[in-house]
């Protein structure tokens, strides 16, 4: 029974993955064949279809690397390389991860504080919200180099500038989500507390905070993904020193498409792991609170 259910849910997932991989292979053959045909033409060789397909999947710098090439590169740069190696994706991933988590912590704390201010003060509601929205309308790619340069000029470099960009991107979903969360109890609930002559502090801790928990985790999921993007973007203007962003930049400098794709897939995997772990924290918390049936 359980296995049947598992198979039923696994089957569509497997089908989608298989479809994506086959489309990917087809695109790789199509996109890389021009270069293969050019080379063959220069050398006066006639390529059979089988040889062409084989060639498109084993180029050093293909336009679009085939999935197995990326898989091999990923295996080599994670499992086979020492973590201390400059070519280890684990090494770069950990650097990006630390900036992501640090920035996420700052952004979340800032977001919650702002939300608390906004729900308790009309003036803050009117003055903070427009700026928070405007802040997200500025393209982060334009802003990131300035943040890096400004912080560098006052002697701050390394983790903190990247974390600042992460925080900048991740505070916003937290503010928006937590303002909704803190305001989510219906007026009757606030009336009830008023009949107990509860003070605002009690209303906050006994009603607003627990009621906001589902909103918090939803915001955190969006926030941590944004945080990762911020950390990667923050690694681009530093001149490709370290981190997944640096691997992306170095890859594009030298036309190492396989390296770019492995860095992209590492970033995506990292994002999935981060969002997934917040999902687990969400389930544990809500179950503990009795809010999961």
């Amino acid at each position, binding site marked *: 029974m359980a296995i049947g259910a598992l198979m039923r849910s696994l089957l569509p997932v497997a089908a989608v993955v298989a479809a994506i991989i086959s489309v990917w292979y087809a695109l790789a053959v199509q996109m890389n064949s021009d270069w293969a045909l050019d080379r063959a033409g220069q050398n006066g060789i006639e390529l059979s279809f089988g040889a062409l397909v084989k060639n498109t999947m084993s180029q050093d710098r293909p336009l679009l690397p085939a999935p197995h090439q990326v898989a091999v590169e990923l295996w080599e740069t994670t499992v086979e390389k020492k973590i201390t190696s400059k070519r280890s994706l684990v090494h770069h991933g950990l650097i990006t991860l630390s900036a992501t988590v640090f920035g996420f912590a700052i952004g979340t704390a800032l977001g919650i504080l702002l939300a608390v201010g906004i729900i308790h003060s009309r003036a803050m509601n009117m003055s903070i919200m427009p700026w928070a929205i405007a802040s997200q309308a500025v393209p982060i790619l334009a802003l990131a180099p300035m943040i890096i340069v400004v912080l560098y000029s006052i002697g701050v470099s390394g983790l903190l500038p990247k974390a600042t960009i992460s925080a900048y991107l991740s505070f916003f979903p937290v503010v928006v989500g937590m303002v909704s969360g803190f305001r989510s109890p219906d007026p009757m609930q606030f009336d009830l507390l008023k*009949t107990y002559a509860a003070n605002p502090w009690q209303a906050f801790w006994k009603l607003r905070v627990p009621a906001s928990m589902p909103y918090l985790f939803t915001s955190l999921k969006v926030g941590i993904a944004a945080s990762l993007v911020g950390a990667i973007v923050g690694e681009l203007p530093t001149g490709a020193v370290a981190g997944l962003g640096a691997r992306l930049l170095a890859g594009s400098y030298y036309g190492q498409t396989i390296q770019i794709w492995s860095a992209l897939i590492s970033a995506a995997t990292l994002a999935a792991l981060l969002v997934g772990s917040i999902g687990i924290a969400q389930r544990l918390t809500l179950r503990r609170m009795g809010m999961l049936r």
Partner: protein
Amino acid sequence: MADIQGHQPVGDAIISANDLCLAFETRDGTVEALRNVSLDIGRGEFVSLIGPSGCGKTTFLRVVAALEAPTSGSVSVKGMTPDDARRARAYGYVFQAAGLYPWRTVAANVRLPLEIMGYSRSEREKRVRNALDLVELSAFGGRYPWQLSGGMQQRVSIARALAFDAEILLMDEPFGALDEIVRDRLNEQLLALWRKTGMTVLFVTHSIPEAVHLSTKIVVMSPRPGRITSVIDSPLPPERPLEIRDTPEFIKVAQGVRLGLREGHIGD
């Protein structure tokens, strides 16, 4: 016309409203939710406010609870202003929806007002137990609200209002969302509870049988503007099993209420 029952202040009134008016400003102009409402409620009485929607019965309850401020006129609750009575935790309020916190167990929901009011831990446990006993839900303290039926949830919310030493119970259509069978049972339980605790109950409803069954005094209200059209003292004995609804006395009081409601609509 507005004040049919001449207002004579009663000496031992626990709630006393005098010439109360309340107007809301809306986009469609001023709405008179209450006009010249005067009412005295004696200690230990069970008073129902009945009338069609928009007659101000809930508004009146909210004014007594200091959840709404009157435009003019005065109210005293236990000799205090409503707001002082609220701060003195003089009343328990039961809303139409149970409004239990989904993240708290039944016992923890009943404990909520006690935590806010700063009762000691041992006192809280004792009171939660007593309140759950009163509504016959002692076995359900560890459950979460979603595990309970609507009627049980409403009983928890009544227990929550009974947990602290309020002398007055304000109830705003507490059984309005429940089906008739559950409602009849809860009416009987509420009567038993009222006799046991000796509380003063102010009860908003739009059901004539419910009002007649429960009340020592029925206040009939009418809308536009919200006002009291008649006050009927019930001659029914304090002991009221469900079968009392078939007696001639009950039917006579119910007729009186129906007549009052109809008169309120003349001129509409």
